C-alpha cells in the first residue's frame, strides 16, 4: 500500500516534469523553429518602439539570452531550491517552490496562482456537488422508470445539457436570471468568501448551475446506463431471491456497483476543473485560474502559463491517485500494485 503510493508519487513527479517540458517547448522551441530570433522574442516583452539596449536588457533580465535547456534548468532549480531574480540593480529572492516571475508584471507567479485558486475552487466544488447529486439521482430514477415519460423527458434534457456549450447556456442564464429578472447578480460580481459570504454565494449560483447542468446531464446518462446494466446482473437477482425489499436491492446492491466507475470519471472531471474552468470563468468573469491562463496565453506570459498548467496537472494527478485508492477500498477485487 505504502509502496504503491510512493510509486505513484514518483510517477506523478515524472508526469509533471513532462508537462513542464512540453509547455516550455511550445513557448520557446516552436517559435525558434518558425524562425523567430531571440531578439524578436525579447522585443515582444519590451513594449512599443523597443530600442536595441532595451531589448538587450530584457533578454538578460528574462534569461532569454541563454540556451533553452539552461532556461529550463533554471526554472526547475527554482521549484526545488528557489531562484534569484535581477530587476535592475535590485536582486529579489524567490523562495522554493519558485515558479518564476511573470514576464509582464514582474510579480512572482506562485502568489498569483494562490490568489486565483479560491475562486476556481469555489466554482468547481460547488458545481460538482450539484451535478453529482442531480446527475446521479436523475440517472437512477430514469433507469428505474425506463421508457416512462419521466425517463424520456430527463434524457432529452440531458442530451441538451451535453450538447449545448457552456458559453451559450451561461449567456442565456445571465440574460434571463440576471439582466431581465434581476434575481442574481451579473458577470464579474465575484467576491472572495472571506470578504462577503452572502455575495460570494449569490454571485456563484448561476455559474454553479450552468456548469453543473453540463456535467449533471453527462452523469445522468452515465448513471442510467450503468444502473440498467447492473440491474441485469445475476447478483441483483440473488438479492431479490433472498427476499430483500426492492429499496435495499437498489440502494445497497445496485447503486454501489453503478457508482464505482462513475467515481473514476468524477476524479478526472474534478481534477480537470480545479486547473481552471476556462469557459465558465470567462463567461461569468470569475477571476479564477482559467481566466488567468487565458490572459497569460494572450500576452505570452510564459511563467504564468507554465504555473497554471503545472498546477492543473498536479490536481489531476493527485485526484486520480486518491480515486485509485478509494477504488481499492470500494472494490475488494482491486489490488493495488
Amino acid at each position, binding site marked *: 500500500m505504502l509502496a504503491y503510493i510512493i510509486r505513484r508519487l514518483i510517477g506523478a513527479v515524472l508526469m509533471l516534469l513532462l508537462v513542464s517540458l512540453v509547455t516550455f517547448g511550445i513557448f520557446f522551441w516552436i517559435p525558434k523553429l518558425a524562425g523567430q530570433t531571440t531578439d524578436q522574442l525579447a522585443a515582444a516583452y519590451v513594449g512599443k518602439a523597443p530600442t536595441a539596449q532595451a531589448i538587450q536588457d530584457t533578454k538578460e533580465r528574462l534569461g532569454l539570452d541563454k540556451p533553452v535547456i539552461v532556461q529550463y534548468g533554471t526554472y526547475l532549480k527554482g521549484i526545488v531550491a528557489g531562484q534569484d531574480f535581477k530587476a535592475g540593480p535590485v536582486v529579489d529572492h524567490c523562495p522554493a517552490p519558485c515558479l518564476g516571475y511573470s514576464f509582464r508584471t514582474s510579480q512572482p507567479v506562485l502568489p498569483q496562482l494562490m490568489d486565483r485558486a479560491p475562486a476556481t475552487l469555489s466554482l468547481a466544488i460547488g458545481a460538482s456537488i450539484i451535478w453529482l447529486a442531480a446527475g446521479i439521482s436523475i440517472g437512477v430514477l430514469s433507469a428505474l422508470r425506463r421508457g416512462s415519460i419521466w425517463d424520456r423527458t430527463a434524457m432529452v434534457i440531458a442530451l441538451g445539457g451535453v450538447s449545448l456549450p457552456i458559453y451559450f447556456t451561461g449567456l442565456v442564464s445571465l440574460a434571463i436570471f440576471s439582466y431581465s429578472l434581476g434575481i442574481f447578480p451579473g458577470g464579474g460580481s465575484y467576491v472572495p468568501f472571506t470578504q462577503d459570504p452572502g455575495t460570494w454565494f449569490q454571485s456563484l449560483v448561476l455559474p454553479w448551475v450552468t456548469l453543473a447542468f453540463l456535467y449533471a446531464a453527462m452523469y445522468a446518462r452515465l448513471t442510467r446506463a450503468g444502473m440498467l446494466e447492473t440491474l441485469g446482473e445475476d*447478483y441483483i*437477482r*440473488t438479492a431479490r431471491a*433472498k*427476499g*430483500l*425489499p426492492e429499496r435495499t436491492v437498489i440502494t445497497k446492491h445496485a447503486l*454501489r456497483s453503478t457508482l464505482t466507475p462513475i467515481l473514476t470519471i468524477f476524479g478526472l472531471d474534478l481534477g480537470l476543473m480545479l486547473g481552471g474552468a476556462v469557459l465558465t470563468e470567462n463567461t461569468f468573469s470569475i477571476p479564477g485560474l482559467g481566466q488567468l491562463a487565458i490572459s497569460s496565453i494572450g500576452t505570452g506570459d510564459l511563467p504564468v502559463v507554465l504555473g497554471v498548467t503545472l498546477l492543473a496537472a498536479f490536481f489531476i494527478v493527485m485526484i486520480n491517485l486518491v480515486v485509485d485508492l478509494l477504488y481499492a477500498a470500494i*472494490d475488494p477485487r482491486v489490488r493495488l500494485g
Partner: protein
Amino acid sequence: MTGEPFLSVRDLKIHFPTDDGIVRSVDGLTFDLERGRTLGIVGESGSGKSVTSLGILGLHNRRNAKVSGEIWLDGKELVGASPDEVRRQRGRKMAMIFQDPLSSMHPFYTVGKQIVEAYRVHNDVSKSVARKHAIDMLGRVGIPKPDRRVDDYPHQFSGGMRQRAMIAMALSCDPELLIADEPTTALDVTVQAQILDLIRDLQEEFNSAIIMITHDLGVVAELADDVLVMYAGRCVEQASVDDVFHAPQHPYTWGLLGSMPRLDRARSERLNPIKGSPPSLINVPNGCAFHPRCAYATLNGGRSESERPELTEAAPGHLAACHLPLDRRREIWESEIRPTL
C-alpha cells in the same frame, strides 16, 4: 399424502410480450411436489426451465412478463399475491441456488455479510447472532474454518466453495422449498458430485422439497424422485425417475437419453443427438411442438402437425403428451431406442 400437496403449480403460463410477438416461455405447466421429494425438470436450453423457477419465486418483472395460472405454496397462492407478500415468502419459505455462483454473489460484500443479510431480512436478530448463524451455515455446507472464511469475498473462494456458500445462503432461513437451477453446471466433475451429495444430505436434514433444474440427466438419475421433461414451454412427459429411464414414452425423452454420453460404451460409437434445434418460442410449431424434429411424427397420419397432444396417463403416475398409440411407443422403445442406448 393427506390434503393439499406442499407445492402445487396449476396451468402456469409465463408470456413475454415483445415487438416481434408473444414469447411463450412457459405455456401451461402443471405439477405437484411434496416435502422431502425432489423433482427434476429437464429439457434443452430455452425450454422454459429457468423461467419456471424464476416464476415460482415471483422474480419476473411484472411489467414485461405476463404470469397466469396458480402457484400454491403451503396453502398460499402466489401468482395473485401482492409483490410484497411474495417477497416475504422468498428466501424464508422458498429459496434458490443459481447456476453461476461467482456472478450470483455481490463482488463488493463478504460472503458472511451476504448470508447475514439473507438471514436478517426474515429474522429479527442482532448482527452478531446472524453472524454466528452464518458461520454455522458455512460449516454445515462443509467449508473448512468457517469462522475465518466468513470474512472472505466471493472471489477469494474456489468455484466449489462458492457454490457451497451459495447453498448456505439459500438455506440460511430453512426454506421448505429449494429450487436449484443447474447448480453444478459451472463446476468440475469431482466438485459436482460433492455438491449433489451435499444437497441430498441437507434435504434429509431439513426435509425440504427440491426442484432440480438441469439439462444433465445424470444429475436427475442421481438425485430426483420424479422427472418432468419440458419442451417449448410445456411438459411432454412426467413420471418417476425409474419410469423415465426405463420406460420413457415421449420421443423427445428418447432423444435426450440418446444424447447422454455413457462411459460403459465404446468410444467409437457416436452419440445420437436430437436433430435440429428447439423452436422459437414466438412461433411454436402447430400440433405437437416437437413434430419437426420427431422421427415418428409421420406415423400419425398428420395428427402431429395439426393437433396438440394432451398429457395422458401412459401408466399409473406416468404422463406423456404424444399421439403415438401406447403399444406402438412400447414397440419403438423396445426395438429401436433401447438397444442403441
